[in-house]
């Protein structure tokens, strides 16, 4: 299958999942929508689940990549984190249905999809590693400080998407930034960074 067709098919799978739900979605309908033949599908994927897992991987890899790219754009560590967070929130807000597929519709399918979601969430932790070097507390910080920060952001973002407010996520970037930075920097410095982010908006 051509890369463009594959990408189109994977995107169509997630659109169909969002529209019909896992049980009701039909691969045949998705193939028509994506303009992909049954033979091409069968040459690439063992079944519906294999295709869905590939589609979810494509979606979450894109979100992680966009975040990592923005994190790498220079400036001091808090500014890089702010850039990454803003990029992620813009991505989620730009496609609310895909945001819901990422956090809820796909993970709801079962135990293995839920494990993939957990892997996706944990994938953000390495992006925060520079915080230990930047923070005054440095080596005193807990082993799990990155996951505490990631989990804090995930909880807030999850509730907003679940409540149907994905489009408003970018406006929450300064507040979420506070929760991401506070385990590394403490409340005073995190609050100052939040106010800086508010002024830039």
């Amino acid at each position, binding site marked *: 299958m051509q890369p463009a067709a594959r990408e189109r098919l994977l995107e169509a799978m997630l659109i169909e999942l969002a529209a019909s739900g896992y049980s009701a979605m039909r691969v045949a309908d998705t193939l028509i929508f994506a303009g992909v033949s049954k033979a091409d599908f069968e040459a690439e994927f063992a079944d519906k689940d294999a295709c869905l897992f590939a589609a979810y991987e494509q979606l979450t890899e894109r979100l992680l990549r966009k975040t990592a790219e923005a994190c790498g754009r220079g400036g001091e560590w808090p500014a890089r984190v702010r850039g990454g967070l803003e990029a992620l929130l813009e991505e989620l807000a730009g496609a609310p249905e895909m945001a819901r597929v990422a956090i809820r519709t796909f993970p709801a399918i079962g135990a293995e999809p839920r494990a993939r979601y957990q892997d996706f969430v944990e994938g953000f932790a390495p992006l925060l590693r520079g915080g230990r070097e930047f923070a005054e507390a440095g080596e005193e910080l807990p082993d799990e*400080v990155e996951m505490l920060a990631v989990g804090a952001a995930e909880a807030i973002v999850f509730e907003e998407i679940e409540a149907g407010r994905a489009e408003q996520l970018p406006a929450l970037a300064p*507040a979420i930034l506070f929760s991401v930075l506070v385990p590394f920097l403490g409340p005073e410095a995190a609050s100052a960074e939040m106010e800086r982010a508010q002024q830039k908006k």
Partner: protein
Amino acid sequence: MSSQAADLPERGPQETRILPHDIVAPSERDRLIEAMALTCAERGYAASSVEEVARRAGVSRRDFEENFADKAECGTAAVNQMLADITAAASIAYAPQYSEWEKILRGVRALLELMAARPSFAGLAQIEARQGMGPEAYELYTSGIRILEAMLDRLQANALGGVARPPSAIRGAIGGAEALIRRELLAGRPERLPELLPDIIYGMLAPYLDQQEALRYAGLARELLNDGG
């Protein structure tokens, strides 16, 4: 993958010998609730069937239907039970002789020990109710979070002054702890949950206290763990 560890039996030993597997609850309804939690821990809620839950509880499908209208009602009952147990465990730690900070420390410790002892129920309340079940279960999950938020909110009065904290800071503080708990449950390592107490305490206090003070409480949590006190 989900934890497959069996929960420790908490109820009386009656009927243990005639029941299949690891279900020891005395009443048929409680056995079904336990079977639901164990089955969901292995397969996830969506893939769990009424037949399997009934078989695991040692009852017929008809017996199941006499206790619950459907799978969702049984699942919701299991989430409800875990939330009641969580609230009770945390409340005991809220004894008046402790400072607000110590109450949090002891309350979180009680929660982690409860979840380590009952990983299937913990997974149902923490993972399935949030992402795998229907709106009613999600509502229960969020009501549990609001209780924890109310407990944490009591710290505001003693928090470091002169700091602007967003309203979502409290949700973030709990979310950090949840992420660690979910990771251990999904990895099948529930026995590690109590060891996370110092880091979780740090994450919950970090938005409120001076950083060195939050680190000091994490150290106290470590001492509490080491002393077994």
